[in-house]
């Protein structure tokens, strides 16, 4: 049971990573980041079977923080959209050296 869960967790994480790396739409990248977070949550849940409930407590915390983070992140994306009228990250390079 645990190995399968960890396998799917890794799969989910890689999907998130690939999404972050390849997509240019900020919203989609944001969603992929959430995917990665939840992949980690899945690992926590699975491993709590072996190591006790503290993993599940961790997941609660992660979800709470992720909720706050997505609120802030989406607000930022909306602010960027208002300014640039796009959320394509290719066009958003204000920190170019």
């Amino acid at each position, binding site marked *: 049971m645990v190995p399968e869960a960890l396998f799917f967790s890794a799969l989910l994480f890689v999907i998130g*990573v690939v999404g*972050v*790396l390849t997509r240019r739409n900020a919203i989609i990248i944001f969603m992929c980041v959430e995917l990665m977070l939840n992949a980690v949550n899945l690992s926590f849940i699975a491993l709590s079977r072996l190591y006790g409930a503290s993993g599940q407590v961790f997941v609660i915390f992660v979800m709470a923080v992720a909720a706050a983070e997505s609120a802030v992140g989406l607000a930022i994306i909306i602010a960027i959209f208002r300014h640039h009228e796009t959320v394509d*990250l290719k066009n958003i*390079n204000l920190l170019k*050296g």
Partner: protein
Amino acid sequence: MLQAPPPLAVPGGAHPLTGSVAELVWLLPVLPLIGFVINGLISLFTSYHPGPADPSAPHDHDAPPSPPGHGASASHAAHGHDDHQPRRSAWHVVVSIVGPLVLLLAFALGVAIFVAIPAHMQSPFIRTYFAWMPVGTDLPLHWAFQVDQLSVMMVLFVTGVSALIHLYSVGYMRDDPGYARYFAFLNLFVAFMLVLVLGANFPVMFVGWEGVGLVSYLLIGFWFNDKANSDAGKKAFIVNRIGDFGFLIAMFMIWANLGTLDFTSVAAGAASLPVGGVLLTTICLFLLLGCTGKSAQIPLYVWLPDAMAGPTPVSALIHAATMVTAGVYLVARTSFLFSLAPLACLTVAVVGAVTAFFAATIGLAQWDIKKVLAYSTVSQIGYMFIGVGVGAYVAGLFHVLTHSFFKALLFLGSGSVIFAMHAAYHHTHNEDDAQDMRNMGGLRRYLPVTFTMMWIATLAIMGIPIFAGFFSKDEILGAVIARAGDSTMADAHWLGIPGSVILYAVYVLALAGAFLTAVYMTRLMLYTFHGPNRTGEREREHLREAPLMMTGPVVVLGLLSVLGGVINLPAFLRLPAGWTGGLDRWLDPVVGQAALRLTHGVAAETPHELALVGLAVLVAVAGIATAVVRLKPAALVPKRQSAPAEGVERVLEHKYYVDEFYDRTVVTPVVDVSRNVLWKWIDAGLIDGFFVNGSAWFLRGLAGIGSWLQSGQVSAYAWAIVFGLLAVLGAFTLR
């Protein structure tokens, strides 16, 4: 230096001069220094800029009458005509009094010290004033003055001749806009010269040595509006630096080997070094290099003829009578070193002999009256070098003394001539050369006093009996023959040639030089004062004898040129014992020991002395006769009509092209290396290009990479993070 110091203990009990007037020796340089400060301040606060009439131009014939405050318009000389008379500042009188007065006071003090010195004073009277540059305990450099027979002799003639020339300058420079500046410099010169002769150790002497070089530079370029003059000043300064390098190296070597720089301690320490060893010889040769610079000997003589760009009294004082004899003084002062290195002594004598002959040949073909005298000075200093080189220190210094009389006289006389010529040309707005002998001729009718005095000096420099130069020159020539017979130098080998052969060659060169001296001096007198006048019809009536202020010092020097020989009459005159060899006895405590050391401890005897004297006189008379027979002043034409010289004469007129040779071999390569290697390659290329701009370019390139990485593309960062993570994980896994 301005305060009398607490007296220090003199080793070996109280010195006979303790508490005497010699305690005031510090005042000697301070007196002219006070004059320098006063005149310098006056010069600073009353200075004005030369107006449209350039004061350095010899003839400003288009110049409007000088406006008030623009002062004189003539550089070389004045002119006694009312509409040309410039307005002088009220300070002029102050300068005229202060300038010479401090020198007269210094001379009086020198005489007082001279009188106070007891007969046979064996040890020098040394006063240490303050620790000057104490470097640890190894090099306690003190500011110390030394009174002994040698330094007092130098003090007397430096202050005496300076005082006369200061008085002369009051007349000569009276209309110059830089009058106060001139006297400030002249005073400063005497102050440094006195430091030079009074210094009790090498560094103090070196201060004076450099100081007189500085003032020499300032006064050669006194009329700096003319580029040629300031170039001549720079040349003198730079050529002297080469010599000073030798002096410094010698000082370093002395200190490194003996641990002291005081003359007395070095004299004591040098005795322990191997006689004739490489070390002593090297030290002496470096000292000699310093002397050839300051005293204008081969190979560094080239600056002195150019130094004639300065005012003529300066040429008389600095570039004939005093400063240029500093090299002779240095050899005599360090006789305790030279007498231990026979090879160095031989070198000194050879340098002197070659210079004496070589410069005399150049003097034969010069047309500028001051240039002739300049080469004559180089030649005569050569004789002094022969004297101190062969260990006849008294003879060399005797020639310094007599030469300072008759050469100062010759220069001041030529100054009077130029003064008169310039005034005449200035009057008629003629732009001819006031210093060219081809424009002179027959001046004896117009300048009778100068004419008489110049002939006295001419006879003195030729070595005609009873005149001062006769005694000193013959003493040098006799000393060479005496040393060639029996001395440590005669025993030594110089470049494989026996020393005695060298010394005989030195004698022959010196004798030939004496012949040439007679020729070129007779030539100078014939062309300047005899024959028809070539100045020009209108100018002739303006030729006038110089004022009393100028002829006075000239006459005094004339008397000295006649009587100067009295101070050291030779023994062959068979006079009562007290009459002969005065200078010999006077200087014996300072240089006697060193002179004896070179002659195996027995006093040098000149064989066939009377015959040698007769030969020297004969040679001089032959020179006069040759010049009188061969030269035709009547056939001479003024400079602007003369054809260029041909053949040998042309080579001589161009001074053997030595300046051109130095230019090609030294100046041009140095300039080229400086320009192409040091400037363009090292400075502009390596330092500016590689180090300064190169480091900037390197960092800019580095920053470019950083900037390129910082693309602002978030996904690029994400890729980097992932690859970095994979690399770290891979590294951990594969470990």
